[in-house]
């Protein structure tokens, strides 16, 4: 504002002075002139002479043609409008020809129908144009999702905002335009001010862009510094695996976990017990992680194979670690750290671990055997000593007889059991001999040098060289899957074998969890003690790793299996332990829960019945072809006549459900009814409702529930809002067209 021209300001002042003076003058004049021209109450229309047929004023002059412009010009109020009319350019030739009469004949007017059509067309065009002006409004209303009446807001005489006033402002009177021009001359318009500000900005040393640039550069540098710092921090945190391992070890050492072996000696009894307990816990943990059979456990298989993301080398190392750990722990638990110290050297090699295990088992076997005999003796004593006079039911003759019979049976069983146990010992001896003598024959390396060793069972020759076994009433067969050696005990109750074969129970896959072993002992109806002994013996011989779960005991379905063939099968990859167990002659094998239940339901052909019912249902529902030929009609009768093919037009196909398209097509244990629910179908829509052209469109309408319970509040309100709402009390007027 400093650089405003002072002269222009002076001019403005002078103008304002003049303004005040003139307004005063005006006021004075206005007051004086008011009574002079009083307002008229009634308007008197001027009389306008109309066109008269006979009058000379506007009568047709002989040479002059009447046209629109003259008509309009005749009315004083429209006189100025005549200028707006397009000037008529008369065709010159027609002008030259002058009168129509001179031309001769008039052209015939168009036929009325044609004329009318032309008129209609013109009118139609005009109407359409007029109607099109409403098109936008009507389209909007038709397509609207929601209408709230009244549609158009009433015109309100509200106060306009200053901005609206300014933008609309245009000088209309002389005074206003004068002020406007003065302001413009003083460069006080909006444009001028912004221009000056821009110039001021430009005159500064640093431009806006430069400032911007500088700030950007600074920010960039700060960002870079920050990033470098964070990266440095992260890098400092990264340590190698080895570092971590060492750190862990150091920490463990700090916690005082020295080697237990040394410390055990120096401890007193209490601490020692505690330490032993801890070691046992370790062992349990190891067990829990499945790292305990070097060869057969799942972990070992995974470690050996490509599973667990281990390479072969890693797997081997892991196995070695595990074996080492196992050896140490077991020795500690048994509390004889030095006992097997002699064989330490051989123990170091992982491959020979199994032999050690076997040795240990053999060591324990004597004790087990002894225990078994003790138990037997106890049973025998019990039965002998229990000769007190029985009273009541037990004192009756037939009961006594039965008891005696039972005792006899038990005694027999005991005998056989003893025989079995004797034989175990013998077989063991044979086996140990065999393994000593024919090591080459029974052991072989698999997979080249240094691979795992596979011990096959004693060969048939060595077996036959041993003590002649009594002929085996049962046979055992090994399933084809050699990787999972399973021993099957054949039931001595061969009477039911056919039934069992048919029984669905046996076809069922064995589940991973069978009934508890405890229960199974109790199941044997007679001589549970004897059974227990057999069980404990078996357990001892086989070791915990090969202990048979009841669920894995399967009854062979093939009673005619040849012993020789079975032996050959077994020598494929079974352990000698398993082999021995399988061929042990036994008179009675305990029955599992499964077998009992199988027997209980032996007569029920539930599955067969169900399959038959399903087949029947499928057939009922399937499409059928019926021959409607009346027998005998149109046919010859008598002997030796060939049966003619029935007339295809007489074959009626009844629609049905194809067995392959049934809902239960691929599942054997379910029948899903394909019948039509007639009672419910009366609530279905009979035909497709109007606007929809497919079922899916219609059914999609119901996909979304509208209730308040299943929607958000706003969602429910939106979906249930009526299409048309009306403001109460409002007058609904037709839509006005705005221009």
């Amino acid at each position: 504002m400093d650089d405003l021209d002072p002269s222009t300001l002076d001019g403005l002042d002078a103008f304002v002075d003049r303004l005040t003076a003139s307004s005063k003058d005006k006021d004075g004049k206005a007051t004086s002139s008011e009574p002079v021209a009083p307002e008229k109450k009634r308007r008197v229309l001027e009389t306008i002479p109309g066109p008269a047929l006979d009058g000379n004023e506007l009568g047709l002059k002989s040479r002059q043609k009447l046209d629109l412009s003259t008509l309009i010009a005749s009315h004083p109020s429209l006189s100025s409008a005549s200028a707006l009319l397009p000037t008529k350019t008369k065709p010159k030739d027609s002008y030259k020809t002058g009168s129509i009469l001179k031309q001769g004949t008039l052209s015939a007017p168009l036929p009325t129908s044609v004329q009318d059509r032309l008129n209609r067309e013109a009118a139609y065009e005009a109407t359409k144009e007029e109607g099109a002006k409403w098109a936008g409004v009507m389209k909007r209303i038709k397509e609207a999702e929601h209408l709230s009446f009244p549609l158009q807001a009433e015109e309100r005489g509200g106060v306009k905002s200053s901005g609206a006033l300014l933008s609309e402002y245009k000088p209309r009177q002389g005074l206003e335009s004068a002020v406007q021009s003065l302001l413009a001359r003083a460069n006080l318009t909006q444009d001028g001010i912004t221009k000056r500000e821009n110039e001021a900005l430009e005159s500064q040393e640093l431009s806006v862009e430069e400032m911007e640039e500088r700030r950007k550069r600074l920010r960039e540098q700060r960002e870079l510094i920050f990033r470098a710092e964070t990266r440095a921090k992260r890098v400092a945190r990264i340590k190698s695996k080895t570092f971590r391992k060492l750190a862990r070890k150091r920490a463990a050492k700090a916690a005082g976990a020295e080697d237990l072996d040394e410390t055990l000696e120096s401890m007193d009894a209490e601490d020692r017990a505690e330490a032993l307990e801890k070691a046992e816990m370790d062992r349990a943990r190891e067990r829990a992680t499945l790292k305990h059979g070097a060869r057969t456990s799942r972990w070992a298989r995974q470690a050996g194979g490509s599973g667990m993301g281990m390479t072969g080398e890693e797997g081997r190392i892991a196995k070695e670690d595990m074996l080492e750990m196992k050896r140490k722990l077991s020795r500690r638990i048994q509390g004889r750290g030095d006992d097997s110290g002699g064989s330490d050297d051989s123990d170091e090699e992982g491959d020979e671990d199994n032999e050690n295990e076997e040795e240990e088992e053999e060591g324990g076997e004597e004790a087990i055997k002894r225990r078994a005999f003790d138990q037997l003796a106890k049973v025998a004593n019990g039965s002998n000593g229990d000769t007190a006079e029985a009273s009541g039911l037990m004192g009756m003759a037939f009961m006594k007889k039965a008891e005696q019979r039972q005792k006899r049976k038990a005694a027999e069983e005991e005998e056989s059991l003893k025989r079995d146990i004797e034989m175990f010992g013998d077989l063991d001896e044979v086996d140990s001999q065999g393994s000593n003598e024919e090591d080459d024959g029974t052991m072989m390396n698999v997979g080249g040098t240094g691979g795992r060793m596979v011990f096959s069972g004693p060969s048939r020759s060595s077996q036959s060289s041993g003590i002649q076994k009594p002929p085996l009433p049962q046979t055992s067969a090994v399933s084809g899957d050699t990787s999972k050696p399973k021993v099957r005990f054949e039931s001595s109750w061969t009477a039911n074998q056919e039934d069992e074969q048919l029984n669905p129970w046996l076809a069922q896959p064995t589940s991973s969890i069978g009934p508890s072993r405890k229960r199974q002992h109790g199941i044997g109806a007679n001589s549970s003690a004897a059974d227990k002994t057999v069980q404990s013996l078996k357990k001892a011989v086989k070791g915990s790793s090969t202990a048979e779960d009841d669920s894995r005991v399967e009854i062979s379905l093939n009673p005619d299996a040849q012993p020789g063939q079975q032996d050959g099968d077994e020598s494929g990859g079974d352990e000698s332990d398993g082999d021995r167990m399988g061929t042990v002659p036994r008179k009675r094998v305990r029955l599992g829960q499964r077998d009992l239940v199988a027997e209980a339901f032996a007569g029920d052909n539930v599955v067969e019945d169900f399959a038959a019912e399903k087949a029947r249902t499928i057939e009922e529902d399937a499409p059928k072809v019926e021959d409607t030929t009346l027998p005998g009609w149109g046919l010859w009768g008598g002997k030796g006549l060939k049966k003619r093919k029935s007339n295809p037009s007489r074959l009626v196909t009844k629609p049905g459900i194809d067995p392959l398209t049934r809902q239960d097509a691929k599942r054997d244990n379910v029948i899903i009814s394909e019948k039509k629910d007639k009672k419910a179908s009366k609530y279905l829509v009979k035909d497709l409702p109007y606007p929809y052209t497919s079922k899916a469109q219609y059914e999609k309408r119901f996909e979304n529930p509208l209730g308040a319970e299943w929607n958000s509040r706003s969602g429910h309100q939106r979906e249930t809002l009526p299409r048309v709402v009306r403001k109460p009390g409002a007058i609904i007027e037709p839509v006005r067209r705005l221009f």
Partner: protein
Amino acid sequence: MDALIAAAGPLKAGKGAPHHGRRKPLTSHKTVDRGSEKESIDPSTLSILGSTRLPHAFHDTPHASGSGTSSSTLRPDPSVSKIKDKKLRAKVARTDVATQRANRERNDVNEWLNAPLGGAAGGIEVDHEAGERTWRIGQGEIESAVGLSSRGKKFDLKFDGLGEYVVDYTRNGRHLAIASKLGHVATFDWQAGKLHSEIQLRETVRDIKFLQSESFYAVAQKKYVYIYDQDGVELHKLKQHIEPLHLEFLPYHYLLVSSGHAGYLKYHDVSTGTLLTQIPSRLGSPPSMTQNAHSGIIHLGHTNGTMTLWSPNMTTPHVKLLAHRGPVSCMAVDPSERSAGRYTVTGGMDGMVKLWDGRMWGKEVKSWHLRNRPQTLSFSGRGMLAIGGKGGVTVYNDLHSGSSADSVPAPYLNLPTPSLTAHSAKFCPFDDILAVGHSRGISSLLVPGSGEPNFDSGELDVFESRTRRREREVRGVLDKIRPELITLDTEFLGKVGDQDRGTYEERQGKSYRQLGRMERLALAGEGGEDSDAVAVANGETVEGVSDGDGNANESTRPIKKDKERHKARGKGTGMKKYLKKKRKNVIDPALIAMRAKVAAQRQADEQKRKIASGEVKKETGALARFG
């Protein structure tokens, strides 16, 4: 204007009317100019804009969480654009968008309002790493950990020498009914400790069930079913139900269902007192019965190991499933929100427990073996499963956790009842309580996290007053659902039924007027825009020129494939046909070779054409061989 309209009169469109130059399109009256870059507007349309759109409150506004986005992200399914009719298209598109939006909002509400405050679903949490397990936690430990009000909910009612007890809760979980084998029946408000009725019936009682509220209950006695009121006054003897074994009540249909020794399934409408229907199951005395609360379907377990699903509409079972080898001793249907009546658990005398999916009967989702064979099963509102048998009840929390069907789910809680067999176990609705009936009374045990914490008081009110109950009962009878609507498919209502198409002659004999809308649409070749939608969804484009027959209804008019037009020989059409036939996204060496061949051929043709037209001059002479 009026004169113009009057003059316009009838006019034949098209035929006689000559067009004066180019016809102007019907445009709106855009008179207000807004500069060069903006479109000019029609002031009349502008004036009604505000009143022809949804009120401002319903416009999408992004949430503070950023989850809600503007509706511009919601687009109708692309298949909608296949619909020819403009109005219908707009309608279907609007529906589609509304559905999408509703789903999104529902998710938002569930996430922000209905999710539990702590983030977890409730229940016991243990340090799994440290070897702690939930099933090691006993009732005493739970009792000491919970608040005083919850502690009072664990109680035992001892009745010696009265036989095994059956329990039942009302639907809001407020009232408990117990019935012993030897005829001791009692109902009470177990939370307030208020006894409603206690009667000695002096005859065998096999089951007890509350009807629509605590004011009536039905008892399956030695010979018949009896109905008693809240005070234990005998109201009705239902003589049609002979030797009943099990009772169920369908609350929305007001149907009392019983199954008896003779194997009959009987539906009795308790609002009118009439026997609706009796259906012979023809499978003997059923060892178990349960209902699917979601659909009202009754499940029966039979001695031959099958489970059958019944509705009063059909005399044959909807589904017959061979579930077990041995009698099906107990069943339960998961009522939780996640399951929505899909999952059923059956327990058999063979000691197996199997989990079935109602969308795929015949293939168990999970099955495992129990040491003690299951005697009773119950699902809680949150989908926990209680399996009762000899020695107590085991509760499983997440049945669907393991991947394989054979993996045994880890138990959530062990609730031992020493030297007793759990004869009947029921979870209390809307509370973390499991009531177990055994031969020495009943035990109410705490199972944290089992009950559904959010109840809809308009539907089932835990704190229901007397007036509320009366109101609900009257409304319930007014809103009674017809028994015909019990169907296996819960989405059944509102669908378009399959029409009986009749024989060929019948169809031919119909005039156009007699045809249904679907048939007419099929005739016009307009029906079934779904087929197009399916094609779009599969990523295939409809080949050839569409002649309007392409989208005929499949059932009546199978889509005719456009025949390949056979051109003259020697045009290499074989190769093109081959390429066309091959799916474009399957690439194999043969296809690549063929494409290369075609490209080479095309290039050669192009070269020839250019030479012929003179664009390229063909090299001649000795150097031509070098190209």
